[in-house]
Every structure is written in C-alpha cells, then in structure tokens.
C-alpha cells in the first residue's frame, strides 16, 4: 500500500467511525474523485460497515401507522404501512438471526433466502453469541451468551439465557444441562416437562423459570402451577406463582415461597406474564427471593448460594467480554529481509534505529542501532524518532513459539502477533511522512512458549519530537521550556541530570493533580525521558491542574501550574 493509499485508508476509517472532521471528509472526497481504485476501496469498506450495522440490528425502522396504497393502484388494495414496514424489517432481521444461529440457509438464484423449517424456531435474539439450534429432534441447543427466544412445535416458548445447554428430546420434553431458561407454556402444551439432574418439572399451563448450575437446580413459578418431583420420581410439591423449589446435591429438595412482605413486593413486579417482558429481571427476582428465603429459613445454605451466584456472574461477564489484545492489527507494512540488514543483533535488547534527516527529507543517513532499557540503574533509554521508518530488531528466544508486540501511544495503540520466528519489523509510526503532533510510544515485545507461558519481555520507548522533523527553538531544559499554549497532547521531558542534586536518580515521577478532581501519577524506571500527557480525550476538562515532577529518593522537585482556558492551555513553570 503506497503512502496515498495509507492516508486514504485512514480517512475512510475515520469517516466510518464518525470521528472525521469536515476537512477530512472533504479530503477523502477529493482524493477519490478521479481515482477509481480509491472509490472502490471506499465503497467496499462503507458498504461492509453498513451491512454489519444492519445485521447487528442497529438500523431500526419506525414509520408510524400511515396508510398508503401498495401494489396496483387500480386495485385499491391498501395495507397498513406499519405492518408492511414491520414485515420488511422483521424479515431482514430474522434472516440474519437465522444465519447467526447457524441454521441451514439456502438462497435461490433470484436472491430470495429462506430458512429451512426447523423443529426449533428462533423468534428473537439479543446479543447472541454461539447459538446452535438442532436441525432435528432429539437434539441439543447451545447458547454461549446473550438471550434467545425459541418456539417448539408444541407452542411452548423458551427464553434462553446463555451460557446454556439444553437437550430437546421432543416438542414436549427438554432437559436443561446448564444455564437459565424461562418457559411460557400455553394451555395447548400443558404437560410440557423440563428435566434437570435433580428435578422433573411438569407444567400445567404456566410461566416458570429453571436454573441449573453445577450442584443446584432451581425452579420458580411466575404464573399458573407446576408439579415438581425429584429425578427418581419422589414427589416434591406443587408450586404456584411466587413459589419454587431448590435442589442441592446431597440433600432433599425444598420449597421456597415468597410469603413475606418484601418478597411479595419484589415478586409483584414480575408476576404473571410480566416475567416474559423482561426475563433477565424475572430470573434475577427469582434468585433474590430464593436467596432471601434461604437467609430466613435455611441460613446455612447462604454461603453456597452466594458462591453459586458469584460463579454465574463471573461466567456471564467472561462470556460478554470481547478480548482482542492478541489478535489485533499491525500498522507496520513490511518485515525487513535479514540479508538487507547490517545492524548488530543483541540477545537482550530490542533495537530501534532511525534514518537521520539532515535538514531535509531527501538527505538522510542511517544511525547506528540504539540499545534500549539495558541499564537497571541509570539509563538514558529513550530513542528519538527521526524518520517514519523504524526498523525494530530483536533476537528470538530458543523456547519461544509466538510473540506479541504492543505499541502504545497517546493517540493510538497497536498490537501484532508473531506465530513463527521473526527477528525484525519495519514499523511506520505515522500515516503521514511527518508526525501530526508529538507522540510518546511504549513498545513491549513478549515471547511465549508452546504452553502460552511468557518466556521473555523486551521493552523500548520512543518519542517523536517536532524538533526531529523540522526547525524549532532549542529546548535544553525546563527553565527554557517554552510552554506557551498547549492545545493538544503534551510531551513533557524529564531528566534527572537537570540538577546536580538529582543526577544519580534512577526513576522519576510525574504527578498531575486537577484541582477538585482526579490525580494521575506516572512513575517510571527512567531517570530521563518523556511523559506523554494525554489532554485530548483525557477527561481532564477545564480548570486548574498542578504538575509535580520529582525523582524518588532525591530531594527537590519541579512544579508547574496549568490553567485550562478556552482556546488553549496556558502552562506556567514555577
């Protein structure tokens, strides 16, 4: 990808994310005006973004209830627009849900997709991940996370909350292995049965929930009644609205009843078919009532119950989490072929080298590699960028099978993975030839063995300063620092050798304190370098901010006061 394409690609990204400025939008338009390839690139990305928006249900339709003529006007046929529009949207969304669910899906040449008939019909879904619907019965339904509502051919509707595994034996009989469900059983399906490891629940036309975890099975009735028996056939009791049964491994099941005022009040909010409107809340109330009943009547069970709740919540949080730090994008555009390298490789240090610009962009040379983070006492580990092409080099440990490189800046962070032996990478920090603003980067390269155990980590720090890319006033130290107005992220230099008193320091600390607000402490293992202070989107807001720089273990500190005012940030060094 050439430089123009990289710039354009970044503009497209900003436009899609809605963070592009009007100027950037105009720039994108101008770049692609006479360039078919760029237009193709833009169309492809924007179209895909829009399709994902649609599929994710983020495009809603609400068109009121107007009436209008549809079809042949002469026929005078009129249909409700709301219904027509709803059909349009429902068909679209349902199609996608079926696709997500992994249901068989075929499409004829005319472009009309149809889902094959299934004994389990997906009616609705929210935040569904990993839903497997059985194509025939008996079969197993699995839901990794989210909420899915399905209908069996008996008319029974089950709202399922993941993670869940449900064996559907036939339209009238299911077995909940693990998870939570809320069942609505119409009178026509009376006799519908839910099995768990501990219980068997016969429905008599009702709304009820069943929750199964490792050692516990819970039933709770919101409407109607169910007959509960133990798995071995021993009767437990008949449960009506506000009642349930709890079965724990090692003891006989017992009945819980919302029979005190607080419980009755809580239950009233989900009583009857109100439970169907918010299944998550209904199940939460069932849990609360059960817990409260146990606290009142079976206090020795409380700790077990709380542990179960904690496990369920942890599982839910883990399922909803979208971890991606190890499977991320990499900005670097190419690996440097080893044969083209003439730099020294060391065993312990990541290398950063830079082409040195000598007054103009066209006159450049290459500096020697610079060791980074190799001194435990007093290091000057910072490398200043002089170019937008930074060859990174390292030695691959013998036991490593994979590696992860993380580059963290104030504006952006990148992560890239190496799944085979790699010893170098050409990294381009900016999308443009020159940096838009000063930036501080922290690089971390972690190596992992086949068991995903970390075997070694290398770090480096780099800073992009305006002075490295063009003429600026010389800034030798804090007393000459031209703070002036700061409108964007600030790169704050620090160096223990500014004074004799702190010259032997091995670490530094910058404390930023917003008057009446947050405090941020940046403690590093460096005696000199640069802090990246994120002002843009840094949630600092207007007002007075105090900065204090010191070197732990040594007397003396530098102070600065900052007053954020409209149009810029005035900083005064004291």
């Amino acid at each position: 990808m050439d430089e123009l394409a990289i710039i354009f690609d970044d503009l497209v990204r900003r436009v899609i994310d809605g963070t592009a400025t009007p100027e950037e939008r105009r720039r994108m338009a101008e770049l692609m005006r006479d360039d078919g390839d760029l237009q193709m690139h833009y169309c492809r990305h924007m179209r895909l973004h829009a399709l994902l928006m649609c599929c994710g249900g983020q495009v809603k339709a609400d068109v009121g209830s107007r009436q209008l003529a549809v079809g042949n006007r002469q026929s005078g046929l009129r249909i409700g627009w709301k219904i027509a529009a709803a059909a349009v949207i429902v068909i679209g969304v349902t199609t996608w849900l079926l696709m997500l669910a992994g249901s068989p899906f075929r499409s004829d040449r005319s472009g009309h997709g149809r889902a094959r008939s299934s004994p389990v019909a997906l009616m609705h879904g929210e935040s569904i991940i990993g839903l497997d619907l059985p194509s025939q019965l008996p079969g197993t339904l699995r839901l990794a996370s989210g909420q899915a509502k399905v209908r069996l051919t008996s008319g029974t509707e089950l709202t399922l909350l993941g993670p869940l595994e449900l064996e559907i034996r036939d339209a009238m009989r299911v077995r909940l292995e693990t998870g939570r469900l809320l069942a609505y059983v119409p009178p026509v399906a009376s006799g519908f049965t839910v099995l768990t490891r501990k219980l068997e629940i016969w429905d008599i036309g009702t709304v009820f929930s069943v929750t199964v975890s490792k050692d516990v099975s819970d039933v709770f009735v919101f409407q109607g009644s169910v007959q509960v028996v133990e798995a071995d056939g021993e009767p437990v009791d008949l449960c009506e609205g506000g009642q349930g049964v709890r079965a724990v491994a090692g003891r006989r099941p017992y009945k819980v009843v919302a029979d005190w005022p607080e419980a009755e009040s809580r239950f009233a909010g989900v009583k009857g078919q109100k439970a169907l409107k918010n299944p998550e809340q209904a199940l939460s109330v069932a849990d609360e009532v059960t817990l409260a009943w146990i606290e009142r009547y079976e206090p020795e069970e409380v700790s077990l119950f709380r542990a179960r709740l904690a496990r369920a919540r942890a599982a839910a949080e883990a399922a909803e989490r979208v971890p991606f730090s190890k499977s991320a994008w990499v900005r670097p555009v190419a690996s440097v072929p080893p044969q083209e390298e003439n730099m020294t490789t060391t065993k312990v240090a990541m290398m950063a080298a830079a082409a040195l610009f000598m007054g103009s962009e066209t006159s450049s040379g290459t500096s020697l590699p610079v060791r980074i983070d190799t001194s435990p006492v007093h290091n000057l580990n910072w490398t200043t960028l002089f170019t937008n092409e930074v060859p990174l080099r390292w030695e691959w440990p013998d036991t490593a099978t994979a590696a992860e490189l993380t580059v963290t800046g104030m504006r952006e962070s990148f992560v890239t993975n190496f799944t085979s032996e790699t010893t170098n990478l050409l990294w381009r920090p900016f999308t443009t030839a020159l940096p838009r603003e000063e930036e501080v980067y922290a690089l971390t390269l972690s190596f992992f063995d086949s068991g995903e155990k970390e075997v070694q980590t290398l770090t480096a720090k780099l800073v992009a300063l305006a002075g490295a890319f063009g003429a600026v006033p010389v800034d030798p130290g804090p007393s000459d620092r031209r703070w002036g107005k700061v409108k964007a992220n600030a790169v704050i230099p620090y160096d223990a050798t500014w004074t004799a008193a702190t010259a032997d320091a091995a670490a530094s600390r910058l404390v930023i304190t917003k008057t009446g607000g947050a405090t941020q402490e940046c403690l590093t293992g460096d005696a000199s370098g640069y802090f990246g202070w994120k002002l843009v989107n840094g949630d600092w807001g207007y007002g007075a901010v105090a900065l204090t720089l010191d070197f732990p273990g040594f007397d003396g500190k530098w102070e600065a006061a900052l007053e954020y005012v409209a149009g810029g940030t005035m900083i005064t060094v004291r």
Partner: protein
Amino acid sequence: MRDGVSTFAEQLAGAQFDLYAYISVLMGGAAEAADVLQETNLAILQDASSYDPSRNFVFWARGFARNRVRRFYRSRSRDRLVFDEELMNSLSETVSCVSDDRPLEELVLLRQCMESLAPKQRELITARYFQATAVKDIATRECCSEGAVSVLLHRVRRLLAECIEKKRKQAGALA
C-alpha cells in the same frame, strides 16, 4: 394480487440491507442514512405499481434511494453535503462493482467470512455491531485507546471485505 403484493414485499425486504448500504455509501456514512432508507421505502411502496417485474428489483430500488439522498441534501445545508453530484454518480456506479443484485447472498458470504475470523476478531465485531457497544466503551473495557479499537475494527472489516470479494470471485468462476 395478494401473491403480487407478497412478492413485492419480499423483494423489498430482501433489498433492505443493500439499500441501506447503498445510501450509506452515497451519504458518507451519515447517521441520517436510516431516515433516508425509510423515506426510500415509502417512495418505493408508493410507486410500487410502476415496477416492471422483468427488471432487477435491487437496481430499480436503488434509483429511489439515489433520489432520496439528493432530496435529503437539497432540503438541508449544503455544508453537510459530503459528496457532490458528480462524485455521487461515480460512487453509484462503483458500488455496483463491489456488490451484486443478490444482497441476501452477500449476507451469506458475510456470515461465512465471519466464521473464518479468528475468535478475538469475531468477538470484536460482535461487540461493536451486534451488541452495539460504542468504540469508546470497548476501549474502556479493554484498557486501550479509542483509536486502537478503531484501527482494529478497520482491519477486521478489511479482512471481511477481502474475504467476501474472494468468495464472490470464486462463485463467479464456478458459475
């Protein structure tokens, strides 16, 4: 007649994804694309009698969408216009090259390509688009910058786009 109406509704339903994507392209992803889609649907339904079943429905419907986009910008400040008429026409032709007249098949390809993503990539797309989690919130949850999440999402979208294109070409070669 009921069958005729039913077929028309099915075709319109099947074209929703394509129309929204088409409008988004012409409007530079503006948030009002969903509103314009609704106006487009309304216009299509009002003019349903003019549809010639021998014509490709998607291409016919896109004409309505294009007009509604123009009308949208005519009724608003010119400052908000992202693309001028010339560029919009050019994009309208270009978008035909990256899509086909069977939008539902494109969704099938999208689904297949999503399955081919690495789990972490799929989870990121799921969070952003299927759980409607804002980029900022994802960034907060993952302790990284919004820009980093944005870049990651862009990369995954690129992978998906490349995958869809590849599968479309394969399908074309087999046809």
